[in-house]
């Protein structure tokens, strides 16, 4: 540790620049993570509300309905089955559609069908499973019609895939930038200490001993950059939405994400340093 800090003391400006640059490239990652997390949350909310609805014929017997309900609940993709009776449907229509309440009020017979509302489990809310479930529902003879917002589900799914793809590409891109920055910094640190390294190799210092301070420097740079990025992202989270975004509440990243992000920055720093130092220091020992 003392050795790694010695590197910082020797070239404080270079080290600060490198931490700053790594930090900034990771801030982009952090901000994107924040956006992705919130989009993901919003999509999840909507997805949870995706329902497959089946309308029952009026002559469906209560026994048949109960049996069907049990069967539907047993389907692996189905999270819950809600049954809305004809009376409940009418009740709701009166409440929701005020303009028609008079019309409904005057009716002698209830024109609305009873219905099943199926919600799907997380991980099963794909276009395929949704239409499969709708088909299973429609297969009952007493079901007149099964519906789901097919286009809507597909769009939602595409949006989510795109969001994940962009997050991955951007995240990967900026992580790569951070890695290259650390590779360069460590390389410069190695070159700056070229004379000392040469003497260490001549008198018989072990390779690990020579490499350790540079590896530490890489890990510390990654860690410091990661913490800086976390701080700046947090600041942006506090300052921005209040002024610019018309969203009531933006969710902060889960602790697992932030902890994993900072740890990954440190590990990437270490690996970047290892690749750099191995190339620069390894030469003098010839082929392995």
């Amino acid at each position, binding site marked *: 540790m003392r050795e790694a800090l010695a590197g910082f003391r020797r070239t404080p400006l270079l080290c600060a620049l490198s931490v700053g640059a790594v930090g900034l490239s990771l801030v982009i990652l952090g901000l994107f993570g924040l956006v992705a997390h919130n989009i993901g949350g919003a999509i999840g909310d909507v997805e949870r509300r995706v329902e497959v609805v089946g309308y029952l014929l009026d002559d469906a017997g209560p026994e048949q309905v109960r049996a069907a309900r049990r069967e539907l609940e047993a389907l692996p993709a189905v999270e819950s089955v809600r049954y809305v009776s004809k009376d409940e449907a009418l009740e709701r229509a009166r409440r929701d559609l005020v303009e028609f309440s008079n019309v409904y009020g005057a009716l002698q017979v209830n024109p609305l069908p009873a219905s099943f509302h199926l919600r799907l489990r997380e991980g099963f809310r794909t276009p395929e499973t949704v239409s499969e479930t709708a088909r299973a529902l429609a297969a009952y003879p007493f079901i007149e019609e099964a519906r789901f917002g097919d286009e809507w589900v597909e769009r939602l799914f595409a949006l989510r895939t795109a969001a994940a793809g962009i997050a991955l590409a951007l995240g990967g891109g900026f992580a790569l930038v951070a890695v290259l920055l650390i590779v360069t910094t460590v390389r410069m640190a190695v070159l700056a200490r070229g004379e000392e390294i*040469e*003497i260490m190799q001549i*008198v*018989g210092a*072990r*390779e690990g001993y020579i490499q350790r301070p540079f590896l530490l420097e890489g890990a510390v740079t990654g860690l410091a950059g990661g913490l800086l990025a976390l701080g700046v992202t947090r600041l942006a989270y506090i300052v921005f939405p209040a002024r610019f975004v018309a969203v009531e509440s933006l969710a902060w990243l889960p602790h697992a994400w932030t902890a994993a992000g900072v740890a990954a920055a440190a590990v990437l720093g270490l690996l970047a340093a290892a690749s750099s130092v191995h190339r620069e220091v390894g030469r003098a020992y*010839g082929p*392995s």
Partner: protein
Amino acid sequence: MISLRDVSKAYPRSGDALRGVSFRLRKGEFAFLTGPSGAGKSTVLELIHFQTRPTEGEVQVSRYNSRRVRRRDIPALRRRVGFVFQDFKLLERMTAAENVAFALEVIGTPRREIAGRVQRLLSQVGLAARASSRPSELSGGERQRVAVARALATEPRILLADEPTGNLDPDASGGVFELFRMLNRLGTAVLMATHDADFVRRHREIRRLELQDGRLVGDSAA
């Protein structure tokens, strides 16, 4: 202790630096490695120090063989084989004592032993009084003595010297050479590369290995 068997070394661009070189250097022996510049002297020393490997043949240094040596064994080998250069390779920002201490530190000498050993090493090369001078404040001969003290930090059995007097005036050269002879009398084998023919002629009692164009063309012990 050191043996080269049919060693050839080719460099990608410049071609053969050594061709079919064989010789042995026994424990405690002293030998000059002579020949004009470009003859291959430095290449021989680098091979013995395992800074490079032969293209053909093999180099054996005590129990280390160039064909079988593992990368992680090389530091141990280098601790048995000290090396000094024509240009000293001292760290300018450190004092004489710090330069020697640096070598002790990087091979893992316990911290509390370092100061005492630095003092002994500097006394051995006759520089105890200049311990806290920086290289820029020392003469060429004194700098080379610091470099020798540093090379001795690992208590090597062999000392390789590549033109150690090349940058020194005759007086200083004589002094450094006397230091080598003294170390040799204490049991260290010495292989000293030099292209100074006069200097070698003045010491006929010492074995001489002569290189020319990468071939061993003479060995006064043969």
